[in-house]
């Protein structure tokens, strides 16, 4: 009896078209699914962990920023206080300095003297 080769070829083509795991049974498919879901869960938890860590770092940085801002304002205040003529005069007096007696001041007039720009910039009447 002569057997046609066509059905065998058709089966071979079907095998080529469908990958092997499509032929997995329900147990294999379940295991794969569980593994896949587990992988995704691990990835998700990993990302979440990183996000939480990053958030904590940001919170820490925020706190540091607030502390630094506070220190910055304190230092600005300290500079402002020490630049204040009230403070300077008080310290000058504490060091024994006294206001100059106008009678003892000698004014030297130097004609054509060019003022020092950085010193006299704000002293322009």
């Amino acid at each position, binding site marked *: 009896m002569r057997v046609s080769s066509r059905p065998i070829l058709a089966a071979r083509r079907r095998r080529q078209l469908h990958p092997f795991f499509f032929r997995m049974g329900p147990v294999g498919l379940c295991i794969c699914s569980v593994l896949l879901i587990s992988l995704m869960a691990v990835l998700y938890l990993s990302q979440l962990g990183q996000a939480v860590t990053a958030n904590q770092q940001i919170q820490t940085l925020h706190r540091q920023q607030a502390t630094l801002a506070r220190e910055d304002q304190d230092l600005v205040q300290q500079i402002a206080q020490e630049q204040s003529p009230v403070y300077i005069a008080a310290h000058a007096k504490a060091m024994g300095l006294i206001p100059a007696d106008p009678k003892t001041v000698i004014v030297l007039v130097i004609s054509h003297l060019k003022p020092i720009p950085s010193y006299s910039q704000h002293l322009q*009447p």
Partner: protein
Amino acid sequence: MNVEMQRARRRQMFIFLLVTFGMLVLLARLYYWQVLQSHSGYNLAQQANQEHLQNQILDAPRGLIYDSAGRILASNIIRDDVYIEPVQFSVDHPNGDTQGDLQTLIGALHGALPSISIDTLQKAFHDGMAQGLWAERVAVRITPAQSQTLRNLQLSDVFLQPHTWRVYPGGTLASQILGFVTQNDTGNAGMYGIEKQYNSLLQGTPGSLTAETDLQGNPLTLAPGNEQPAVSGANLTLTIDSNVQYMVETALANAVKQLDAMSGTVVILNVRTGAVVSMAGYPTFDPNQYGQYANQLGCENQAGVYFNPAIYCVYEPGSTMKAVTMSAGLDTGLITPDTTLDDQGCMSFSDAAQVCNWEDLAYGTESMTGVLIHSANVGAAYVAHNILHTTHYYPYLQKFGFGQATGIADGQENPGSYRQPGNPLWSVSDLTRQAFGEAIYATPLQVALVYQTIANGGMQMQPYMVASIQGNGHNANTQPVVKRRVISANAAQLLTGMLEQAATKGFAQLAQVPGYSIAAKTGTATTQGISADQTVASVAGFIPASNPKFVILVKLDRPQKAIYGSTAAAPLWGYIAQQLMWYYNVPPDLPL
């Protein structure tokens, strides 16, 4: 299909229907809570958001205030307030040794904050528990060291709340220019001075942060949120110089104390620009502790000490006003410095009250320059009454700016006042008296502006105190603005010469500065209804007269040890003028 199979199918169908029914019930319930009750009824969505969403107000830092040299006059610091949580404490200690734990907590708090007694803390906790308070403040503005100590202790049911405070590193320095900021739980607001005038610019715009929070209430930065950043307040740079301001304030305070005066004011203007170089009043206050000065009065007890007397407190200028009368005469061409009158010490007018000189001194034939040298009331009244008349006199009062706010501080200025024709109470006596500075009320700044106008060739400048505004959407530098031409350059030059002679030969001799020419006029005003020795002594003028740089006005209210402008105010004027010349390296214009 056999019987077993049919039974199995029925069982399956029953279970399916049961599950389906259950699912439908659950769906219906879900619809009820998620849809019907989410935004109405229990408003679950909002309640849920309140649980895990936090809305924070982001404070906008108030802008700083600088002087002309970049020194900070007003800045901010952050300090913590300490809060306790009485209700939370009782929740945290339902059955345990509450009293023992409370004593431990109070002991720790007292250790960190020794200024708060144990009794006070106990009372705060017990009252808070009784009243059901979730948070109660027990300390304000603690030191950084105390904050750190409390943070290290990590006390439960105690938390720190940061709070921004306005501070003025110079203390009383320029306080009546700056004003102060009232600070409370709802925010802050500028009161008086620059802080009030520029409050909207200085305070900026608060931002907001809406974000999901963790269990500790920290915002989850990576979660969806909505942040509206705060816009910082603008920084202001003033025209005043701290060093000059300090020198002036110190000298003024010393003068007021030495002369046993009630109060005093000094104004210094830049002649060419109208910028305020210094503006000082005494008594004054410390804006860091403004509450302690609430009942103190300044400027002849006319107003609270918070007001800037240079722009708020009016007075009768006295003889410094004679410069205005002479200005009007010279500008109209109706007089010259050499125009003469016969001064017999008193002058009678047919339609006005008699006017007399100080101690009725007679000067005989007297020039207009002589009127200023002698500070003769008769001469001034004669010019106003017999030469200028109302038609030529009052327009100059208007042009010099009397009775009008200068515009330097919106809403905080007193415009002053004077009677003029048209006012039912006006009489010709007002004209003769106004000619020598009575029956007219002006602020020190208005009188200083008169002399600025004369020194600047007749051009009055708009006075200003803010040199620049940076930030909060602004980036502007103030440019000097000519307000108006009041008198001609020629009249201003003639008057400068007359005032120079008045200073050298007249009553302002104690104001002389070696090496510098000055143009100045003294004034001694008395107030009707009080003793004649209760004066307002003043000097107004500019230096150097040959090339004016600064206008200086000194005013002392009711000095007791010396009562005249020539003896009380002139020495202070001279001291301030000399210091200014040295500080700004102005070369002398006279041989030393």
